[in-house]
């Protein structure tokens, strides 16, 4: 029979296990990706270095030819409470190019797919019919949008036209604070790999089980579980 002490121990163990699944830090997600051994392009965003200049937003628009009100990436100004104090911070948001993306399986034409060679989630605009099913399936609000120039769904693909040639994405290239770090997380010698092993990165909404490939340094557990959206209200505007 279970005595009270053992029962409490069981309960505590169960609670810890449940919490660790619900609020999974990025570490286990990274380990899962590394086990596969393939090239996996990812981005780390160091929030302590983001000054909210939005150079990334502008350069992304210029590189990918999107209209001024259509953004593949955006920096939202939001706040967090730590203890009894409120802090404001900049939060760059974009497609997480997830390891287990919920947008890929729902696509009825196969237009959205994950590239085997580098893990980038791509929308083929020649196959996309614009049903918006992927937009609904993505738990990260606003990272996908309808491109008014093509009439199809558009999103961040880590500037595939640049990264396929060994260049950095436009937002990483122009980041004035050096907040965005990009590279292959399976290459142990890469800057991103070293940074991920040194710091304690978080991913947005880990409970959605999509294993994002965009990691954040400086984000608390509570903030990482918040459902931020590109359309979240801005606290201030440049």
């Amino acid at each position, binding site marked *: 029979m279970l005595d009270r002490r053992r029962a409490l121990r069981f309960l505590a163990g169960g609670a810890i296990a449940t919490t660790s699944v619900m609020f999974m830090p990025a570490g286990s997600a990274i380990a899962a990706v590394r086990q596969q051994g393939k090239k996996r392009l990812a981005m780390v965003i160091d929030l302590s270095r983001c000054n909210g200049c939005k150079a990334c937003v502008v350069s992304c628009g210029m590189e990918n030819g999107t209209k001024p009100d259509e953004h593949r990436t955006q920096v939202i100004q939001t706040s967090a409470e730590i203890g009894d104090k409120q802090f404001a911070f900049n939060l760059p948001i974009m497609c997480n190019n997830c390891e287990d993306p*919920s947008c890929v*399986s*729902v*696509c*009825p*034409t*196969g*237009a959205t797919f994950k590239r085997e060679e580098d893990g980038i989630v791509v929308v083929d605009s020649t*196959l*996309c*019919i*614009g*049903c*918006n*099913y992927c*937009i*609904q*399936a993505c*738990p990260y*609000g*606003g990272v996908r949008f*309808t491109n008014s120039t*093509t*009439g*199809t*769904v558009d999103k961040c693909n880590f500037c595939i036209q640049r990264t396929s040639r060994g260049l950095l994405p436009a937002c990483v290239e122009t980041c004035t604070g050096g907040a965005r770090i990009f590279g292959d997380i399976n290459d142990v010698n890469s800057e991103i790999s070293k940074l991920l092993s040194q710091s304690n990165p978080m991913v947005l909404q880990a409970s*959605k089980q999509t294993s994002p490939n965009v990691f954040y340094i400086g984000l608390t557990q509570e903030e990482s579980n918040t*459902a931020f*959206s590109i*359309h979240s*209200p801005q606290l201030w505007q440049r």
Partner: protein
Amino acid sequence: MHEVHWGLLVAAYLFLAGAGAGALFISGCLVLSNKVQVPHHLNTAKISAIVGTLLLMLGTGMIVFDLTTFQYGIANVDVVKFFRFYRLFMTIEPSSMMSIGTWLLTLAIIFSSLFCLSFRAKADQPGYSRPFAAINVIFAVCIASYTALLIGDINHNLVWSNSILVVIFLLSALSCGAAVVLIIKTRLKIVDVNHTFAKSDSALLALEVLTVCVFAYSIYSISIFNGMDNLLSFSSTAGAIWWIGAILIGLIMPLLLNFTSIISKTSVSHSKEYLLAVLILMGAFCLRYSVLLAGQYY
């Protein structure tokens, strides 16, 4: 700011597909239960099958109109984008509920058309339609469920992933089908002498009231648990359409109309029958539209 990617056209798609499936279900049941040996039932079954097929076709048209490539094709006179929807029929993606639905609807339209033709080919032998009636009944249940599963497949969505939505949409599709059949019966001047229709419709609507109450309460609980305002609160657009359109107009008022005719033991006038059918159909549309809006909260 909340972005609504699925609006009126998708709601119309869900509604028309549901109503069409409901009409085909009742038509199929009339054939399978041999009631078609009575001439006015045969006419009802025949016209219900035709109307149900047309509604399915119209519903499918609505989802095509909603495609952004289709709208882009019209706005920019781009023929390639206009006809891009053909891609839906070039692939079978078992993981995508929309792809499954595309093929399900295509097959349902083919078989419902054959069902309609079977009435014409052997008008004097209704038994000839039985195999098609059985297939159509199965397809009708699949389509009515699919309209809920299409949105329910998005499992992180607090509103759409609610399992009871399948039951609600199924019941709603049946009551819509009954409303379509009622309009047809009224046009054919068939009188519901034993209040059979009123009684069965009341039972269906009462069951629907029960399920929507469970749904509304679960959405309230889920919203509170996730630290949000009630996603079906009366102050929101979705909530207002839900409580006024779906519940009051679509369920309470038709129930009261049915009850008054049963209690007073008088046959309902044709104008009241039309009103009853229109209220049910309006409510069913509002139900789907409000659920769609409530689910797009992020």
